[in-house]
């Protein structure tokens, strides 16, 4: 059954469903919020508008600034939105070729996932309620009086100092990465967007026009590419760079339009100090 994304909006409306952005906890969460807010007319949601909103949200979030894990989650949202948008542009009626069908299925799947996520989100509210109620009772858990502890059977002790050291070493050693796709690198190393902005500024002052590809050629890790991408967005907002892109999806060239020397004064406090 092909269910247009609009259905979610209708249900959402009739149930007063609304996601407030003051609790950001994941891409689906944000996506649901944005979709509900824009009445799910994905075709009319300009990605730029969503981006602005997201940046505004992060800026207002707290004084601590925003970190890369949030930013990279946003990229997931943006990609999902683009998918949805592409699927939505298809006519809902006749499906002629296999490619259309695939897109429709992708859209339904995505939609189904969103509905499923929403169900768990609603259930989570019930758990939150139970958690809060439980927090008001403290369980009794006290140590045994010596005369009762003395009743316990004597411990059979086979562990020697070396065995103990081996146990400690194993417990204290870092855990191996979990099987499957490990995204922890997105959250782990502190890569400062501000530092990357300084790197880019230095480069662009010497070569006033460079392609994005060249700017990230030496980045090494994806996290640095993301940081530089975000740094560029910030520099753009600051009026320090301009972008040129001749054809859609073509090479993106970056021009330096800022001052020719001096410190880069980014207006946001970014990830400094709390990048983690």
């Amino acid at each position: 059954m092909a269910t247009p994304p609009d259905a979610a909006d209708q249900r959402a409306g009739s149930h007063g469903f609304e996601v407030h952005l003051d609790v950001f906890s994941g891409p689906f969460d944000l996506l649901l919020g944005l979709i509900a807010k824009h009445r799910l007319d994905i075709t009319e949601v300009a990605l730029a508008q969503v981006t602005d909103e997201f940046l505004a949200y992060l800026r207002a979030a707290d004084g601590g600034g925003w970190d890369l894990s949030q930013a990279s989650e946003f990229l997931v949202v943006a990609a999902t939105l683009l998918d949805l948008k592409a699927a939505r542009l298809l006519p809902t009626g006749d499906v002629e070729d296999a490619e259309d069908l695939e897109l429709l299925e992708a859209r339904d799947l995505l939609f189904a996932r969103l509905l499923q996520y929403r169900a768990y989100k609603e259930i989570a509210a019930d758990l939150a309620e139970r958690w809060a109620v439980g927090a008001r009772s403290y369980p009794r858990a006290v140590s045994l009086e010596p005369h009762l502890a003395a009743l316990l059977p004597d411990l059979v002790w086979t562990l020697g100092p070396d065995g103990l050291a081996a146990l400690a070493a194993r417990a204290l050693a870092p855990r191996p990465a979990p099987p499957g796709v490990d995204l922890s690198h997105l959250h782990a190393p502190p890569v400062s967007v501000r530092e990357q902005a300084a790197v880019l500024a230095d480069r662009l002052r010497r070569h006033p026009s460079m392609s994005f590809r060249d700017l990230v050629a030496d980045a090494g890790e994806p996290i640095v590419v993301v940081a530089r991408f975000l740094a560029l967005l910030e520099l753009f907002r600051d009026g320090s760079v301009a972008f040129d892109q001749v054809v859609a999806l073509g090479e993106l060239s970056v021009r330096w339009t800022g001052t020719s020397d001096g410190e880069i004064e980014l207006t946001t406090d970014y990830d400094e100090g709390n990048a983690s």
Partner: protein
Amino acid sequence: MSETRVDELGFDVDELPGGAAAALEAVLMVADEPVPAVRLASVLAMPTERVEELLLALAAQYRGDGGERPRGFELRHAGAGWRLYSAPAHADVVGRFVVDGQTARLTQAALETLAVVAYRQPVSRGQVSAVRGVNVDGVMRTLSTRGLVAEVGQDQATGAVLYGTTGYFLERMGLTSLDELPALAPHLPALSELADLDEGLR
């Protein structure tokens, strides 16, 4: 177990001061986790049904149901059995006394992840990630550190570690079994409803 003879035990709970109810209180006083009624029955050498009656009566008494002064403690059936707790009405006072807070809040991300694990268990981290649309490694670790979820096995096919909720999760949520979790179905759109919507939008 209720057949254990008194002369083997060296005591008859009914003859102790305060009777069987007091014996139950004495045992609950040293328990550091919920105790199943059947285990209490075995220790007291009494039929489980009678122990259950006594537990319910004690719980009501502590609440002040019979007109006595409500106690500052409660006897509750949660998780695997029965355990004494401070009464919720006095949470503010107790909170001032207790240093190690158990009151720390769970984040929205933790609650959502917990919900998925509770309903989908046994479930791998990858499967939870797929539902939430975000990597859950960090959140799962927090939940595990807090004793709310634990490894329960391994997926035969993929080798992925499978997670489930713990007895502490049940106790903390005031449930005696997973069957008491609210039904998920009402939160999902009915098939017919979707079909209707589909029609209407044509």
